[in-house]
């Protein structure tokens, strides 16, 4: 390893380790005061940070980014405010178990270009709530805005009595430094939000990691859906910040019975249906045909900009491009994830056919992430939910806002959405402060009925499975005869 890189990594983690040691002495009240001040500081600067993020990354819409910053500060704060993260967090006298929260130690937070300042503030809040110092490693195209967001939070934390160096941030982009930090012995956790390569690197580092998976969210319009409501919800979600949220819808699957109404409603709300030659033109620029992944230049651009990039003469006021597709797979490039206001569009005869298409979409790069359904038929909703491999199935809800939580449901508010084993993650949870503590269990002696029940016949098995009989088997020879010593 380059000695300069190693020295930088050592210095950052040395500082973080000292901050962690000091942090562990703070009580719940002191910790909560710090979190509150950081929330207020981030909230106060949400607009300037949003504008800076847009200017620097060239992606998204600043008004939406300001709203994301609000969610990442105020909503996250309200979500975690009353949570116990210090000392005894639960006590069960009957079971004889006391649970005590312990901080993890220094956390490395990898930040994506799509939601830079909001993810920085979110991760800082949940890390500090759990008394962990945090090092922010921004995407190379978002160094300035992430640095500014981190500094605002850090200054507020210090004013509220947080340890020095409880928040640090990288001011230059370096893959080698990020890798050196990920594998450093003093690092306790990598909180990795980003592309699959980066998440894989985090998991391979040898340090515990919480990562995310990529999404490819199908949204199913079942024939009982309230179509205008469903389309409005999808428009709200998919055009929000020009589609940069990984939980945003990627493909609409609509039953043929309600297709004409759905098409009309999309058109009425600014959706533009591409002709076959226009689909072909979009395919050429939307996907890197070598990797099969989306073209980063498209990410976070408006529908009109994307249309211009593909030489598609979309009408003025177009908010969303809809690309009718026959099938799902690499030969249909638009059936994959595109973080821009572009939706693949499938029409299917009935529930079974629609469900199969949703499964194909789900398994085309979006396993474990999010799936969405609009329906008024509870049995259909349940069947859909059973079959999707997803951490979240959002029902009659804009998918982006629904998956992030806190607005249209009671999910934990999070900018890091676990995608379970399917997404190569350890959890399907919406990651929050509770994910960033270790729980120590103090167990007092209690009689456990399951153990005592061994002495008697087991009600589930039969009388041959009792402790006495099982113990007698130790006294038998391998041939089954009794051993009398």
């Amino acid at each position, binding site marked *: 390893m380059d000695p300069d890189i190693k020295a930088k990594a050592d210095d950052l983690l040395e*500082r973080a*380790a*000292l*901050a*962690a*040691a*000091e942090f*562990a*002495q703070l009580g719940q009240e002191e910790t909560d005061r710090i979190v509150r001040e950081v929330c207020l500081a981030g909230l106060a600067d949400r607009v300037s940070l949003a504008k800076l993020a847009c200017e620097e990354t060239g992606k998204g819409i600043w008004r939406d980014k300001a709203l994301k910053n609000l969610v990442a500060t105020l909503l996250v704060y309200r979500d975690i405010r009353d949570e116990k993260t210090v000392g005894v967090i639960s006590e069960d006298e009957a079971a004889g178990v006391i649970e005590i929260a312990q901080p993890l*130690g220094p956390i490395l937070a990898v930040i994506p270009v799509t939601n830079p300042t909001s993810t920085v503030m979110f991760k800082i809040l949940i890390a500090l709530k759990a008394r962990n110092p945090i090092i922010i490693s921004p995407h190379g195209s978002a160094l300035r805005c992430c640095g500014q967001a981190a500094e605002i939070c850090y200054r507020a934390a210090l004013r509220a*009595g947080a*340890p*020095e*160096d409880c928040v640090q941030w990288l001011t230059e982009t370096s893959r080698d430094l990020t890798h050196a930090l990920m594998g450093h012995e*003093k690092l306790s956790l990598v909180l990795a939000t980003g592309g699959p390569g980066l998440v894989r690197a985090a998991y391979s580092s040898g340090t515990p990691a919480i990562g995310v998976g990529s999404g490819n969210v199908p949204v199913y319009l079942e024939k009982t859906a309230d179509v205008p409501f469903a389309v409005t919800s999808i428009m709200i979600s998919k055009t929000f910040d020009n589609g940069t949220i990984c939980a945003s819808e990627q493909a609409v699957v609509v039953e043929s019975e309600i297709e004409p109404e759905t098409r009309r409603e999309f058109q009425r709300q600014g959706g533009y249906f591409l002709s076959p030659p226009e689909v072909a033109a979009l395919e050429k620029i939307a996907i890197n045909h070598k990797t099969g992944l989306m073209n980063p230049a498209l990410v976070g651009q408006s529908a009109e900009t994307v249309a211009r990039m593909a030489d598609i003469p979309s009408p003025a006021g177009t908010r969303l491009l809809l690309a009718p597709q026959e099938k799902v797979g690499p030969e249909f490039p638009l059936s994959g994830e595109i973080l821009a206001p572009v939706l693949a569009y499938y029409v299917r005869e009935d529930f079974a056919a629609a469900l199969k298409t949703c499964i194909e979409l789900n398994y085309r790069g979006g396993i474990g992430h999010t799936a969405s359904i609009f329906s008024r038929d509870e049995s259909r909703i349940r069947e859909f939910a059973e079959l999707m491999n997803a951490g979240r199935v959002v029902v009659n809800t804009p998918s982006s806002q629904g998956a992030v939580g806190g607005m249209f449901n009671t999910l934990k508010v999070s900018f890091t959405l676990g995608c379970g084993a399917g997404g190569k993650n350890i959890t399907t949870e919406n990651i929050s402060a509770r994910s960033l503590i270790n729980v120590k269990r103090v167990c007092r002696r209690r009689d456990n009925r399951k153990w005592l029940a061994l002495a008697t016949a087991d009600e589930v098995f039969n009388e041959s499975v009792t402790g006495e009989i099982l113990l007698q088997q130790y006294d038998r020879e391998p041939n089954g005869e009794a051993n009398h010593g």
Partner: protein
Amino acid sequence: MVECRFDAGSLVLNCVFSGRLDAPAAAAAGEIIAGELEKIASATPVAGLDGLSVIFDLAGTDYVSSAFLRLCLTVARRAGKEKFSAANSSPAVKKVFSMAGLDRALQVD
């Protein structure tokens, strides 16, 4: 805060701390100790700080900041690692040194 007592006979500087050693308290203590070390070094121009042992007595404190931990490292570097020790720490403060990874770098009791 800190009270420093230098025993010229045994060449031991005993720094007795009390109260909460947060960042401002650690900074103030750092200045006092630096002044003491200067005085000792200038009083023995030939030997300087050679042979000097520094003891941080932590019996009177139950909170140490990262700034204080840094002060320990600075003084240990200046006096020599084997000539520095932190003594009479409470179990909670001892754990802080362990968490920071300093229990191996410094003598902490």
